[in-house]
């Protein structure tokens, strides 16, 4: 999995590319842990080819941390395969999900 980052309106836009599963989730966690807790995030999922519950667990963990650190975490551009996992687990209720990155960073 590749992680790239840019900044829009004080939001760190973290774009993920590839597979987000048990073997790659620690990489994402470590990457996010390297940021200040109060840094607000938009995680761009457009190029995530595959996500399983370990990947979901990592995202939920980040969301919880950001929530306690009173920062914001949003998800953007979820594809159908990724959406399915959020739907079955009802994890979509925990996130603000946008279909556009800049809209997520502006709102």
């Amino acid at each position, binding site marked *: 999995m590749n992680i790239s980052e840019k900044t829009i309106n004080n939001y760190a836009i973290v774009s993920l590319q590839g597979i987000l599963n048990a073997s790659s989730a620690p990489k994402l966690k470590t990457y996010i842990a390297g940021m200040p807790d109060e840094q607000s995030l938009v995680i761009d999922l457009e190029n995530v080819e595959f996500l399983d519950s370990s990947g979901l667990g990592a995202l939920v963990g980040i969301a919880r941390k950001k929530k306690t650190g009173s920062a914001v975490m949003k998800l953007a551009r979820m594809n159908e395969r990724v959406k*399915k996992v959020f739907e079955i687990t009802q994890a979509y209720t925990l996130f603000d999900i946008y279909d556009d990155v800049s809209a997520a960073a502006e709102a």
Partner: protein
Amino acid sequence: MNPIITLTLQANLRYVRVASIIACNVAEIFADFTCNSTDIAEFCHAYELSVSEAFTNSVRYAKPAQPEKQVTIRFSSDNNSLAVSIIDTNSQFNPVTQAPDISSYPEGGYGLFLIHRLMDTVSYTREDDTNILTMTKQATMTHDT
């Protein structure tokens, strides 16, 4: 049930992707032969995801300090359903699963729940110190039309 492939992998998270890609491909080949026009992509994704979950569990619960530990994945089929079994030598586990309480932001515990929702049948047996988790799904999707 006719056996198709049996595959043994080292119990290491590094190989989760191998297991799930193979599952996805086996499902695709099977669906190609069996289905008329069902949603093949969805069928394959169910296997990709379920095997990813089951394999991850097998590796996670493997007793430590046993680097030679292995997980076996066995595919078999009959007319229109494909079964995949994940076999490991971990200690016995409780396969009963319920939806995790999402409002408490759980980081894990979704795996078996997802498998149950994606597959038609999930069975768990313990034979001679091995765990066998077998998941099957019918290739012909039933639509309520």
